[in-house]
């Protein structure tokens, strides 16, 4: 297993967000976590990225290492786990190029960075046209492309994606997911959280269902898509 989460518990003050969840992601997989708003999906990704503290007893293992030994910037720089946060969170005061250069901050392999940037531009040619534009002036779809591009440049082993479909028109959403599939084919493992359960399950190979801080179901995507409970709760009957 590439990424193993055991008994992950997170609280915000007195409010318990995750009640000790456990799951795994294997190398090269696309795994999704679906669930309603407030179920704890984003919290799970933030805990893996070390943006928020976890409760004692939680264990996260990555590639045989204790991930909790690494601070947030080292999770990206040394473990190779990138994170496209909820709402994209681009640096809108910086240009497209500056956002991408910043994503490569911790990398020293100049040739590798150049290659990855070229790859981003070949997947999303629109970004190349906008290279010197401030990120804040991009359309929603272009911003999502830049957010994914940024994650591609910052780290290549695992990509954590928080609601990549949010705010995107259906056609653009297809484009983004197609690009993500290509990225996965080249070896990047993807862990995705989505409210759009149908989209997520069609895209991923396996899925987990998160309900108010507990994982209640897991399985292959097609099984979940056909599960009557999932259908009723998340796929609109």
């Amino acid at each position, binding site marked *: 297993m590439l990424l193993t989460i055991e008994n992950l518990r997170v609280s915000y003050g007195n409010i318990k967000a995750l009640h000790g969840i456990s799951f795994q992601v294997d190398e090269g997989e696309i795994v999704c976590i679906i669930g309603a708003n407030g179920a704890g999906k984003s919290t799970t990704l933030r805990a893996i990225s070390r943006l928020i503290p976890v409760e004692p007893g939680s264990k996260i293992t990555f590639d045989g290492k204790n991930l909790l030994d690494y601070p947030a*910037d080292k999770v990206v720089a040394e473990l190779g786990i990138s994170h496209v946060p*909820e709402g994209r*969170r681009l640096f809108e005061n910086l240009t497209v190029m*500056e956002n991408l250069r910043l994503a490569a901050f911790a990398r020293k392999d100049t040739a590798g960075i150049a290659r990855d940037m070229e790859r981003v531009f070949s997947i999303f040619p629109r970004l190349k046209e906008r290279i010197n534009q401030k990120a804040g002036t991009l359309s929603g779809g272009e911003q999502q492309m830049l957010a994914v591009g940024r994650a591609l440049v910052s780290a290549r082993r695992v990509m954590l994606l928080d609601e990549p479909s949010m705010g995107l028109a259906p056609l653009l959403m297809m484009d983004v997911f197609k690009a993500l599939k290509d990225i996965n084919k080249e070896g990047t493992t993807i862990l995705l959280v989505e409210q759009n359960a149908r989209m997520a399950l069609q895209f991923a190979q396996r899925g987990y269902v998160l309900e108010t801080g507990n994982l209640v179901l897991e399985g292959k995507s097609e099984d979940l898509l056909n599960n009557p409970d999932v259908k009723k709760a998340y796929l609109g009957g």
Partner: protein
Amino acid sequence: MAFFLQNLVNALQWGSFYALIAIGYSMVYGVLFLFNFAHGDIFMVGAYIGFFVSTGLLALASTGVVALPEGVTLALVLVLTLIISMILNSFVGMLVERIGYRPLRNAPRASAAITGLMIGIILETGNLAILGPQRRLFPDLIPTQTITVAGVSITNKKMLIVGISILLTVALHQFVQRSKWGMAMRAMAYDYVVVPLMGIPVNTVALMTFGLGSALAAAGGILYGTAYPVLDPNMGILFGWKAFVAAILGGRGSILGAGVAGFLLGFIEIFVATIFPSTMRNLIAFSIIMIILTFRPHGFFGEPYSARLRL
């Protein structure tokens, strides 16, 4: 006309000190959302470090180990004093960040602000306790030469002070706009929460921000010492407050803005003092600033920031 130009020259020098202090205020506010109210006292510490470094270097030179013509020796001492003191004072600033502010990174902003006030008082009284109450005389490193052009007398000191201030302001602006670390600072100014996701060590950026601001404050302190050679532990208080005003006037996080506003504040003060009785200087100067802020509440320039500063 000569009267105007003469005051302009004086105002440029006076504004230089404000500009150099305001930049540090503005950078820390921009990058870390923090009012570092100790910054005026960091300027004071920088002036004292400059005093000790220059006095030491002069003593070293007088032993005759290196025999250089007097003018060359003094110029060399000034340059070395600037460089060494800026480096030393940047460590003072980084220490303040590490000990005073980092533990309060996620605390309410008001707590961090009063921490700044307390650190300021500690620096003032600490200076008093260690060095005693007597004032120090900054050594005269630039023998004054006066050039008179069209009735306006300009001293070599003034030219040097203004020149170095502008040079440092432009250099820092370039660093922030072009370098990788400068880019990280601008990113933090916009949305510091997600900066670690780029693999950027936030603590290092914070230290660097404090270090650069404090280095410029040290340069301000030394240049101030060459123009007004009497140093005392409280010299940074009023200067600090006025530079803070200039930093806000310049716009959050904007280095050029802080520089421009620092010079503007110098102009206003000098011209008010030439027209009105000098006791009314601060009264009128700050009334003008209030009026400017009424119409430009965000200052002249300034980094935009994201409204979402939480996850």
